[in-house]
């Protein structure tokens, strides 16, 4: 017994112990490989592991309806809140892993939240995200959308005779009374853009969702008269029950306490004129859309 103890602390012959060490090293090594592989399988994948699984896009549709359609619409066709995802061109990357990243991490500075972070719904597992990507691919048009109009002419109109830039900015140039349209071409469905030009009051820029209501910037029209009789018309930047932050037609910023105002009237009649066929022909509208799409795609 004492001799055995001398050869090995735990009572086993030394050779066996070395073998055990070797075996556990290899097991650990294998486990690491398997772990890395499965991690790659799940998230760091370049292409959708479920791309060839016919069931995946159907399952992805359920996920899409409950997690994405609120902004991106049924059928992924977009709307007033989120981009039309049936377009081949995606602003934040077209590859499968780009879509995965966009869905999982969100897009900072936009209304696109990280997966599960909206605090309203459930969120998705990696597998479910891949299912959603499979679904998006199944409804996506094959070729990149070819703008119908002439983008160069659209740009001239935007900054020229159509006077869009009086109130809208693109890449730092233009006015401040309406939404910055730099990203709008890629962030809104085409029919929504057409509707916004022809009938700007039908739907003012919609709030994103309740959680972001504070910064929804719906560009509601506001008229105020101060206690000393000054009158201002402009757009609401933000408000709560007690205060109002607005920009007047001369782009002056005003910060008011509502109970100190003589009058305060808000309306959802947009300050933007409705561009009918006489003001903007169908062709010119298509040119402006082509310009917006070309800027949005950059």
């Amino acid at each position: 017994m004492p001799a055995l103890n001398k050869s090995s602390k735990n009572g086993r012959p030394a050779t066996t112990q070395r073998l055990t060490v070797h075996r556990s090293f290899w097991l650990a090594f294998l486990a690491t490989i398997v772990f890395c592989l499965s991690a790659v399988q799940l998230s760091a994948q370049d292409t959708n592991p479920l791309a060839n699984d016919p069931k995946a896009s159907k399952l992805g549709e359920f996920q899409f309806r409950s997690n994405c359609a609120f902004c991106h619409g049924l059928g992924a066709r977009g709307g007033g809140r989120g981009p039309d995802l049936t377009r081949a061109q995606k602003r934040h990357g077209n590859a499968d892993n780009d879509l995965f990243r966009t869905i999982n991490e969100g897009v900072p500075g936009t209304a696109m939240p990280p997966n599960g972070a909206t605090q309203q719904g459930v969120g998705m597992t990696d597998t479910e995200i891949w299912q959603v990507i499979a679904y998006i691919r199944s409804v996506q048009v094959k070729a990149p959308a070819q703008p119908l109009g002439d983008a160069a002419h659209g740009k001239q109109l935007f900054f020229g005779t159509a006077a869009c830039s009086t109130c809208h900015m693109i890449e730092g140039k233009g006015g401040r009374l309406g939404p910055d349209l730099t990203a709008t071409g890629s962030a809104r469905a085409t029919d929504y853009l057409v509707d916004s030009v022809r009938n700007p009051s039908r739907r003012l820029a919609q709030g994103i969702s309740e959680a972001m209501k504070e910064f929804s910037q719906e560009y509601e029209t506001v008229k105020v008269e101060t206690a000393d009789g000054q009158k201002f018309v402009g757009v609401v930047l933000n408000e709560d029950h007690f205060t109002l932050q607005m920009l007047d037609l001369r782009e002056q910023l005003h910060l008011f306490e509502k109970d100190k105002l003589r009058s305060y009237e808000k309306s959802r009649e947009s300050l933007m004129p409705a561009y009918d066929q006489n003001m903007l022909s169908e062709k010119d509208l298509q040119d402006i859309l082509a310009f917006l799409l070309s800027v949005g795609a950059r």
Partner: protein
Amino acid sequence: MKKPTMKELLHASLLLLAASAFIASNAHSQVTPQRLLDSAKEPQNWLLYSGDYSGHRFSKLDQINASNASALVPKWAYQTMAGGKFETTPLVVDGILYATGQDDRAFALDAKSGRPIWQYQRALPADIRPCCGRVNRGVAILGDKVFFGTLDTHVIALDSKTGNVVWDATAFDYRKGYSITLAPLAIKNLVIVGVSGGEYGIRGFIDAYDAATGERKWRFYTVPGPGEPGHETWEADSWKIGGAPAWITGSYDPATNTTFWTTGNPSPSNRGEGRAGDNLYSNSLLALDPDTGKLKWYFQFTKHDEHDWDATQVPVMIDQGEKHLIAQANRNGFFYVIDRSTGKLVFSNPYAKVTWSTSKDAEGRPVSLKEASPTPEGSRVCPGAAGATNWMSPTYDPQTKLFYVTAREQCDIFSTAPQPYEEGHAYYGSAYFPNDDTAPFWGALRAIDPDTGKIKWEWKHPSPTWSGVLSTAGGVVFTGDAEGNFIALDAVTGKALWHFQCGASVYSSPMSFAIDGKQYVAVAAGSALFTFALP
């Protein structure tokens, strides 16, 4: 026997004094079941989630009143440093404040200075995916322990002086979509909780645990199994994944030894196909025996729900002479008054915009219109999916005899699609969408006369809020809004008396307490717990 010396006598008396002082202080710091029953006798403390067993969320403190509320100032703020919605209602016992935070935090503070005494955070598994935020609404207290439910569906007892875990009971496997977010209710020696998970096809239940040991004493399944009454209200095997979670704290009537709990939507929330029937006891008020968990009676607000209209609003007990009632402003847009001895409906009246019902049945219950059912393309229904109100607490003020509730004016487009059930995965049967109304959604605090269901006054919110309401004996009602304001209103007129900008939407129900004769009001917003008092 030797005569004791003066020194020995002094020693003995000091010891006696110390011992009696120890016993006295210990007895004082121990929250006995009797103290919970008599909570009205100690208005300086807030011993239960709703302030008392009746669900009133009314404070008898009157130092802050309609004429001095304009002078309120912040006293301290405690930062959890956590993101997400901060939904807690703190408890205060003898100068110590106990509350929970996001991601299953719990903490005890010196309620006067806001300084932490202890802080606890549960090591949650990485794969929990609770619906609707990693939230918690508060603790229950009994003896020398505080109790809370966790996002991985455990019930935990913490030592109230140190935050040490005393016991940890597993209620269910969180991987199947269960979680706990409500503040437990302590009755006698039991800690009663219900589960969340109506988005996953769970089978809801209410549990009672022995406060001393964590041993489970009873479980009431909110979806009856084979052979139980109510089982016939479920098609085929749909009961197994029928939902009906119980995720808001109940109330308790000691006179009849009955605890009242409410339940949420049947699963899947947006699809009735496959679960034909009333789907008991989803969207119901349950009267249970707290000793055994036996059902005494039930009242179902929304039968065979397809709009996610959980009845998980704190049941508020109101006594009018000989009449013993329960009032609830339900998520479906109707205000209900129910006889709490029998479970029979007294009346129901809409308190917000309702389009899903235009008629009532023989018992006076609103009947759902066929065209209100979700369709594949979507159908527009008011109230929307988040409801005419939600889990945020209403309040009943016995002085004004008014019931105050946060109302949400928002309609939605409800769509439906077949969806296979997969254990632990979201199971909605489709979704809802914002509607294209030209008018934006908005909200209001409404004061309802529970005698008639008529609205006495309203305070308009620019957008719907998730803040609950507190009423106080000073004639001041407190609430918050989505724009971050915490607001004091005159309980009689609804006029604003004071407001404070918290810097983040309020997703919690306020409460009040007092220390050294000074009244405080507390509310959670963003990642901070704020307290206010007169200067």
